[in-house]
């Protein structure tokens, strides 16, 4: 942990994630205005003392909308990744442990699914599920599953031949004990690292779906949707699109930096 905090990337990442976490947890409490309240007198104004980040096309306070939108934007990414990791790990660990033709069938299927770009895969699923925040989250989770399954499997395979596993086999431990006590605890590191980095992708895909009208629906203050709704007015007042756009980038950056620091601290330790 100390190694993590000492690296500059880890520190910046942690700082960004703390800000994002505060917005997610306390966003709606901290918001100075009702995010849906119209203030017709101050439509599309720039930053001011009353409205720190300006107002949108209906005179709604952008800062308040940003704060309340944090939870739908960020939790989308975390939720989709968590679901994808869970499903992927189950499939990957099964393939790695069972081996044989089961492994072959699973791996070839994953190869096929991985040949479809993530965003395309997500679009296909979300269209046929019907647009909406929940459907979009499920779609991203499904799209992430093959990649996570592959990582989980290779993680299990590299551990299966380690001495402590061979020792457990030699001790005649049960299969369940070996998987639960020896393999999974050791395989989980790379999976968590990959998951952290993937959250940033999930946030970006979620916002993209919101932007395309296939994710969160109005009156949600999800950030991608905020950009889409304000696009008509972007030439008159660029910050209407810039503020939520930058917020997406900052959150994705936080998860990226933190994930990379995690990887340096835990996975490649001793490599350099």
């Amino acid at each position, binding site marked *: 942990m100390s190694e993590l905090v000492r690296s500059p*990337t880890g520190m910046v990442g942690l700082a960004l994630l703390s800000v994002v976490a505060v917005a997610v947890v306390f966003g709606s409490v901290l918001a100075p205005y009702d995010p849906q309240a119209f203030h017709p007198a101050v439509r599309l104004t720039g930053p001011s003392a009353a409205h720190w980040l300006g107002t949108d096309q209906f005179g709604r306070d952008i800062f308040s909308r940003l704060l309340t939108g944090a939870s739908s934007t960020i939790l989308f990414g975390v939720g989709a990744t968590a679901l994808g990791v869970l499903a992927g790990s189950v499939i990957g660990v099964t393939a790695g442990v069972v081996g044989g033709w089961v492994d072959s069938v699973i791996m*070839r*299927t994953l*190869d*096929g*699914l*991985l*040949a*479809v*770009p*993530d*965003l*395309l895969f997500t*679009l*296909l*699923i979300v*269209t*046929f*599920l*019907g647009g909406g925040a929940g459907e979009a989250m499920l779609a991203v989770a499904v799209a992430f599953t093959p990649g996570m399954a592959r990582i989980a499997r290779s993680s299990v395979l590299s551990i299966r031949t380690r001495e402590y596993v061979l020792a457990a086999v030699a001790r005649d431990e049960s299969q369940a004990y070996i998987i639960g006590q020896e393999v999974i605890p050791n395989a989980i590191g790379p999976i968590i690292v990959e998951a952290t980095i993937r959250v*940033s992708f999930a946030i*970006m*895909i979620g*916002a*993209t779906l919101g*932007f*395309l009208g296939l994710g969160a629906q109005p009156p949600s203050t999800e950030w*991608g949707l905020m*950009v889409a709704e304000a*696009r008509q007015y*972007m*030439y008159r007042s*660029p910050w209407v*699109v*810039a503020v939520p*756009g*930058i917020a*997406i*980038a*900052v*959150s*994705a*950056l936080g998860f*990226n*930096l933190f994930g990379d620091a995690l990887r340096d601290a835990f996975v490649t330790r001793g490599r*350099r």
Partner: protein
Amino acid sequence: MSPAYLLRRLLAVILVLWIVTIAVFAITMVLPGNAAIMILGEYATPDQVAALEERLGLNRPAAVQYFEWLFNLLQGDLGMSLRLSLPVSEVVGSAFANSAMLAATALVTVTVVAVPLGIFAALKRGTKTDLGISFLAYTGTAMPEFVTATLLLVIFAAPGNPLLPAGGFIPPGESIAGFFHHVILPAGALSFILTAHIARQVRSEMSDVLSSDYIRAARLKGMRERRVVRGHALPNSLAPAVAVISLDIGYLLGGIIVVEEIFAWPGLGRLLILALENRDLPVIQVITLLLAMVYALTNLISDLVIAALDPRVRYE
């Protein structure tokens, strides 16, 4: 590399594509969303829906529909677009060419900018220059295409006296200058995130090479730094760079969908979104298959290039 290896890889690509056909068909068939209702509108009577399903063959068992579709596909018959009443091959063909031009422009831009940038950062490892490039690269990888595209539009295409057009497409056969004028913003939006990602990866690959034993040996025997870099480090970091770029092509193919939609570029991405909105199943299926095929083939080609660049890589 043996011909047997090449044959095996080609078979693997075919296997992957076959699995994609099943997956695509499953997604478009099993999930809810009735194509006939989509075409007729929600006020269609059950009789009308049934008649159209009968005409389109949508009421037959999924397996029958799948094998018929696959069989036709193998014979080069891609079917008819439900929405446009045109053969899918016609609709998809020109869109594919347009997308290929956009993707190629972006890919060339990315390669020309990102690889030197990453190598430069690695050579300056630990300096302020390296830190600056790394910072830009990290920020870049956190910007989804729609954000970059929107910001580019605000900066370069604001009404009044726009520097660049906000969208549209001019075939290069009509006007080369017009084509480039229109391709700059979409290609820029596509390239930004990829440049950032590839520069970062190339930097880390090149750093690994620079701290390897043979580079230390070359330095210890008194070789000049310029020769160390040109003669040893650069050739050895090319193969990893190709690997990184080829993996990112999958991402590029996804990015194209959003960017084409924003900049009204008449390619596969825009066509796909239109087809998704209208449940135009034949078009959706063919586009998905096509993008998967491009990705699988570029990966194969890049493996061959890597083998050619790096004599240590031996495929059996």
